[in-house]
């Protein structure tokens, strides 16, 4: 069954390939293609910057030897993966759309926490972290979020500062 199906579809696929193949590549497997591109970029980055360090020889490796070898290997793997994704035999797969709102809000809330912590202290920063990240939920509500922020901040102060005695600034620097 599968054999006859394959024979039937092959001419169609060939003609499609002719139509697309000469002018532009067709990305059949988007996931693998972009993954390959990502690996290629990382590989080139590490191999490129690694080349600035002393390479040395196999017997006496310099700090650059390992990154250059591994980086080149990664770049090569990236190319193979990306090429596999444009071949007509690749399984078709699409990259799902990014959920930008939760992604950005979660990242921004974390960055705010990190940047403001030395100046504003734990209490303010935790509240900010909870409130900004809560905006990412489709069920966001102010009252519940504020309560959650207060409760979580209280728990953290008790557990981390009071019980575990971790060295964390509680209040903003300008309040002493």
């Amino acid at each position, binding site marked *: 069954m599968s054999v006859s199906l394959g024979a039937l579809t092959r001419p169609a696929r060939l003609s499609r390939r002719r139509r697309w193949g000469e002018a532009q590549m067709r990305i059949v497997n988007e996931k693998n293609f972009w993954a390959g591109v990502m690996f290629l970029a990382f590989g080139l980055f590490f191999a490129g910057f690694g080349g600035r360090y002393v390479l040395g020889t196999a017997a006496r490796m310099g700090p650059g030897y390992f990154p250059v070898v591994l980086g080149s290997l990664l770049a090569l793997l990236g190319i193979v993966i990306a090429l596999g994704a444009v071949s007509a035999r690749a399984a078709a797969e699409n990259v799902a759309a990014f*959920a930008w709102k939760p992604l950005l809000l979660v990242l921004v809330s974390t960055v705010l926490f990190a940047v403001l912590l030395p100046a504003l202290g734990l209490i303010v920063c935790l509240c900010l972290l909870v409130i900004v990240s809560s905006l990412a939920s489709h069920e966001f509500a102010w009252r519940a979020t504020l309560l959650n922020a207060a409760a979580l901040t209280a728990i953290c102060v008790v557990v981390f500062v009071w019980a575990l005695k971790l060295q964390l600034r509680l209040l903003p620097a300008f309040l002493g």
Partner: protein
Amino acid sequence: METMFANLGVGLSAVLAIEPVTLLGHALSLPMNLVYCMIGAMIGTLIGVLPGLGPVATIAMLLPATFTLPPLGRLIMLSGIYYGAQYGGSTTAILVNLPGETSSVVTCIDGYQMARRGRAGVALTTAALGSFFAGCVGTLLLAAFAPPLADLAFRFGPAEYSSLIVLGLFGAVALSSGALLKSIAMICLGLLLGIVGTDVNTGVSRFAFGIPELDDGIGFVVVAMGVFGFAEVIGNLEEKESREIFTKAVGGMFPSGADFKRMIAPVLRGTALGSALGILPGGGAVLASFGAYALEKKVSRNRAEFGQGAIEGVAAPESANNAAAQTSFIPMLTLGLPPNAVMALMVGAMTIHNIQPGPLVMSTNPRLFWGLIVSMWVGNLMLVVLNLPLIGIWVRLLTVPYRFLYPAILVFCCIGVYTVSYSTLDVLLTAAFGLLGYVFVKLGCEGAPLLLGLVLGPMLEEYSRRALLLSDGHFSVFFTRPISLSLLLVTAALGIVVALPAIKSKRQEAFHEE
């Protein structure tokens, strides 16, 4: 046999040792290690119950909170967290039909069906008892096999270690569920990220770009938290559907005599399979549970009931994943090589205390070594004794909406990462790895090989450099030494087997059990 029990005795006395503590101003004498074990198991369950937070993220999150403990207490608490997180994952699987973590994916199938028939209590007890039995067997295996393996490890030179790491990394890929080439690329990326920091041989700072914090390298907690914790939170927020929570009565807790009879064989088979798969690099709990379920479906007399609430479908994978969780400690403790991401975190926890995991630990620090092994068994016992009565609390926890939970997860992640070395840069890096982790998910790349590469990268570089230095730059050193050669041959054989089309489709089938 006798030495084994003598060793276990050393461990037991270490775990039960009574230490003076000051609690709220009162001087008390308590078996503190037991207390740590209990706290770990409780907290692990608490977080493991939450869907979408697996043991890796849980351990990474709680790692900094255990900083103040002595080394043994810390490892005991972390392994308690590990078992707790696994057990919590099964609870979620049975009650909500959502796996708390990947190793309980198959438990969902029959466990949830049992719950729908008012047999949730029986399913939970089955999971707990099966896990406990498997845990006992796993502990004994660990105690029996650790010393001979450690002896073997003493004969390992740098060439053997390099080959072993290559085998471990490749095995992790071959036995994982992801696409082969992408997983290998993820390992390379992990190895490269592990290189960031000061080169131990020459003192040159690599890829730090003048940032002093990066001279110490990228912390595995940062990567684990970003790739597993943050990326999972963002991914969960994306799925807007509100979770349907199974709040029907849990039902009676105790399996009937007939249930017990049906449980025995699957538990035994699951334990055997899980113990074997756990030792393999990259094997661990996930593969074990999938394998055990598939096996049961083939050999069980009640195979027609599978998918409709067969008790075998809960007993086998739950025993298997716990047995594997236990035996996956063997390569970590004896060779110092973590076979999976959880063990990679444990290695990190040990190195923070300047204990280099490996064959030496057993002889230089027997109390720590055997104490840890015994605590695993105690931890399993604790889960049965504590968690079955507390089932009501875990069920309640499942009804907390996600919009309250995820900010809490972020808060604990941020404080956790920050307090590892009081560096705000680490928090920023975690956010960056969160973004990267989210991209990985979108592109179908697995995070576990990355973490394994990150931990093993510096080791691999160090050992292979030393091996090549000794051989004067001849790569033949890896092929002429018998142990090294056989390790590489196993790697090659694994590569060939996985690449065979027949196995390839079987491998995909095994991970798509549904």
